[in-house]
């Protein structure tokens, strides 16, 4: 009897020891995991800082006044800078009514669940469709004027807009409209329902509520969503290669012709790589610098401005 009770004590002790060991091991694993996760966070921060400093330090020696002001592609990027903003504005003009209009539909009006499901599926498919594919579609539909297909007596041709700024802007709009829609829908949905109810209770129609209550309250979010979309538009390359084309001629640099080819900064960086000339390495480093600074400034100001306007207009914290 005594022997068995000793044995029991022993097993209890042994069990306690095993449990303590297990706890100790769990604590060690916890330490290792915590260290690893901190390491990952540090790593990704370092990679980001490295990328930015690398591009800036490589490009800085080539930045000069001529680099910004010369429309001659062998010296500067004035033409590409101009085209970048021109295409951005054109594509936003096409995108904003469609994107924000559709966002108002999905967040305020949509009642037909079936249509809403189709719309959401379409938007998500378009968001994850390769930009290359939108470029090819743009080439087929906007640029070329060949016969695409025929159904009975109806023959569908391309629009024949050639490699031009308007073709490029249309392709950019198709590519980015789902982003604008999703981000502005989030902005509209963030407006508290109580505001809508108060407006409707005061006798305003749905449209008046949307126009005078919901949209003003959502302005900070809408500005952010337009800026974030702009950042994507500026960085786009693949879709423009098949639509906007390359326009290196100095003569065309600063006219507003929609039918002129329009080479943007991102495309310029690519063509300086794929068709190198004597000083293209410096030009490419400089172009990359300008491009990344533009994109970062737009994205960071989207955040900062969004928060600032949010506090100012809507009187609530993000």
């Amino acid at each position, binding site marked *: 009897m005594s022997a068995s009770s000793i044995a029991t004590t022993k097993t209890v002790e042994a069990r306690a020891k095993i449990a303590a060991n297990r706890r100790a091991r*769990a604590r060690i*694993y*916890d330490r290792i995991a*915590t260290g*690893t*996760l*901190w390491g*990952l*966070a540090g790593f*990704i*921060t370092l990679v*980001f800082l490295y*990328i930015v400093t*690398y*591009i800036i330090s*490589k490009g800085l020696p080539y930045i000069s006044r001529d680099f910004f002001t010369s429309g001659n592609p062998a010296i500067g990027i004035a033409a590409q800078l101009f085209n970048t903003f021109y295409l951005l504005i054109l594509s936003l003009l096409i995108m904003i*009514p*469609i994107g924000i*209009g*559709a966002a*108002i*539909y999905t967040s305020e*009006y949509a009642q037909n669940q079936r249509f809403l499901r189709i*719309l959401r*599926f*379409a*938007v*998500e*498919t*378009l968001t*994850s*469709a*390769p*930009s*290359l594919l939108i470029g*090819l*579609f743009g080439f087929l*539909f906007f640029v070329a004027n060949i016969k*695409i297909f025929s159904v009975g007596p109806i023959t*569908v041709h391309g629009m024949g807009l050639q490699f031009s700024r308007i073709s490029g802007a249309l392709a950019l709009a*198709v590519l980015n409209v*789902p982003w604008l*829609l999703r981000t502005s829908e989030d902005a509209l949905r963030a407006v508290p329902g109580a505001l809508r109810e108060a407006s409707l209770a005061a006798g305003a*129609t*749905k*449209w*008046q509520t*949307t126009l005078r209550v919901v949209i003003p309250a959502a302005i900070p979010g809408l500005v952010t969503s337009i800026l974030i979309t702009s950042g*994507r538009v500026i*960085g786009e*390359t693949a879709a423009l290669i*098949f639509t906007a084309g390359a326009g290196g001629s100095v003569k065309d640099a600063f006219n507003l012709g929609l039918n002129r080819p329009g080479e943007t900064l991102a495309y310029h960086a690519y063509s300086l*790589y794929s068709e190198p000339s004597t000083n293209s390495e410096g030009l490419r480093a400089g172009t*990359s610098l300008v491009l*990344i600074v533009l*994109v*970062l400034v737009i*994205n*960071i100001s989207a*955040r900062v401005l969004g928060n600032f306007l949010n506090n100012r207009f809507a009187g609530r914290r993000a």
Partner: protein
Amino acid sequence: MASVSLPKQRKARTSSKVWDRAGNIGVLIMGSIVVLIVATIFIFVGSQAFQTFTVDHISPGTFFFSKDWLYSQGTLVLTAGSISLVLLGLLIAVPLSVGIAFFITELAPPWLGRILRSIVELFLGIPSIIFGLLGVAIVIPLVKNLINSVAGDKYFTTGDGIFAAAFIVAFMVLPTITTISVDSIAAIPRELREGSLALGATRWQTILKTLLPASLSGIMTGVILGAARIIGETIAVALVIGGSPQIFGIDHLKNGQLFIGTTSVMTTQIFHDFPNQATSGPILDSLWTLSFLLLSISAVLVFVSRAITSRSVYK
């Protein structure tokens, strides 16, 4: 007094009703335009894509599996290349993104989490051409030195190929997977964490055994959308993939040179060949077929990700 102002009020009310109706129809039209755009893309690209089979009379079996098609390579090189790139890219990206997501939600103080999230989101803004040029300038030499020093041969590989490409696309999809994971981990109710900790689990055990299973559907959504992005990535991959007509793995193993890894993927082949084609012909048609395949893959992946999201418990 009321009778004097009544017609005016009624008129105002009627006009605001008309505007209400017009506004409703207007935004509905905008929504329909978006659907119409997507339908047009499918119809237009599809109409070109099927010419490979209807006009050029190439059987799908030949198209996808024969080596006697498309410059005697077959499209198998390209589809296999895309699949390998997705797998290798996700192999790097998933642990990194999910780790950072757990760091942001569970470990970091709120201010640090916010900064890190901003940095991760800024990655999303970096244009693919910049990623491609960085790949040429930084990643290719890195891969070259790494593999050559392991192989003990200075001239074993030039560094371009699927490994450099996988490394780059991993960083490109990192923000997608991380932000979706962060959102789905943050949506897990506090009680689950507290329950696990109260039972004596360490933080790591809580993450691994409670939070990871609970957020798995969200993380999977991120991974699938990441895969879609990798399959569609063009410029960044085109600059570093090497563009050789070898099926990654199979052909390289045959030559005993798995780690050279130069290959082609669907997007880069289309990207390089499309500008060189005449306005019609079987090769152009085949490029359209590949494009339509890309579009269909996007649609299927979106469908799958939606199915997973709709099954998730915590939103």
